[in-house]
């Protein structure tokens, strides 16, 4: 976890990347990976409906970007975003989604069965690699519901609620994991079908410095399928 935070810090301070730049590339990677694993034609619901659950931090921001690109790729995303930071970055991303006619749910579906009926996929953009400690409401209840959902769940960077290094055996078991920048230790505990790498912005010098040993991305793709 510390290494991931150190890499992020270097990208922002040494390389002068803005959070906006990297979040846009990260969110685009997530949407692209989802489109490869779950093409619109594979959905059994009448429309390729996707529920994107966004948490209170940067992982939620990644989710908002992802939702916007999913819409452009032909999906019908719906966002649930209960705790919104009052920062221009997140306000802007929310506006961009709304102007693309992406609905924002006023309440989270109370039953897992409702989610299963309405959506063909859930994107878990609740907590990311900075997550530590206890899960605060409303996310505890949301995660309990998601744990009972039967449609596939795609988690951004870390399955929410997992310890970033040790995982969580009785927690969320997503079908897909999109690791951003590099896989975190928790990824070793991932048992779903699809593991993608996204966030193709790490400069070669940083990759060497942290001995990331990332495999090569195919041609100009922004994602790489690891499993």
């Amino acid at each position, binding site marked *: 976890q510390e290494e991931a935070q150190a890499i992020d810090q270097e990208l922002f301070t*040494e*390389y*002068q*990347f*803005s959070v906006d730049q990297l979040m846009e590339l990260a969110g685009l990677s997530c*949407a*692209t990976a989802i*489109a*490869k694993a779950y093409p619109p034609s594979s959905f059994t619901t009448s429309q390729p409906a996707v529920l994107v659950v966004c948490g209170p931090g940067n992982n939620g921001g990644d989710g908002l970007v992802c939702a916007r690109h999913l819409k*452009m*790729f032909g999906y019908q995303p719906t966002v649930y975003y209960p705790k919104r930071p009052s920062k221009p970055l997140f306000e802007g991303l929310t506006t*961009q989604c709304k*102007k*693309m*006619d992406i609905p924002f749910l006023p309440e989270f579906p109370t039953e897992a069965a409702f989610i299963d009926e309405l959506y063909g996929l859930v994107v878990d953009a609740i907590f990311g690699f900075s997550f530590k400690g206890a899960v605060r409401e409303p996310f505890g209840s949301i995660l309990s519901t998601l744990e009972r959902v039967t449609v596939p769940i795609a988690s951004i960077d870390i399955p929410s609620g997992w310890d970033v290094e040790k995982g969580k055996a009785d927690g969320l078991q997503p079908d897909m994991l999109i690791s951003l920048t590099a896989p975190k230790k928790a990824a070793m505990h991932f048992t779903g079908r699809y593991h993608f790498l996204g966030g*193709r*912005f790490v*400069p*070669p*010098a940083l990759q060497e410095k942290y001995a990331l040993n990332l495999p090569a991305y195919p*041609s*100009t793709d922004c994602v790489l399928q690891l499993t």
Partner: protein
Amino acid sequence: QAFPLPSLPRKQPTVLVVCGPAQNGAIGLVCARHLRSFDYEPTIFYPKRSPDPLYRDFTTQCEKMDIPFLSYLPTEVQLINDAYNAVVDAVLGAEGTEGTEPCAPILATLKHIRIPIVSLDVPSGWDPDSGGPGGLSPDVLVSLAAPKACARSFLGRQHFVAGRFLPFDVQRKFELNPPEYPGTECVVAL
């Protein structure tokens, strides 16, 4: 897509990215950084640097990616032809007028090179609406958001549109009727 790595004639995948002083140049800087991620070897010529903090950050990102910045553009055209596989023209965009220093001498040199030129949005020196004589003749044009009127005069090999990010209501409002983008691609060849 237009110049995949295996297709390049030179042993090293070198590309010269010529960046003007305004937004078109900044887009060139971002392009150079992504070319580096794609394993090309870009070199940048960016003689008049914008004071805009965002564009300054783009410059830092490129420098930290070990992308060299030329201190001058050779006037001897053969040197450019020999060193690079292609040139990215990010000098002037839809705002451009040729006379802006130091663009005029740069464009004068670029007009005589023989390696392919990829122009971003508007071939530098062209009037954005009417096209017209006196500008570069690029091999490839990448229209940003939507093709400009001058694109009708484009005679090169490939014309791409990079406009998948436009919200649907903007597309409708301006009656852009964009083509379908394949899969998850962010560009489409027209």
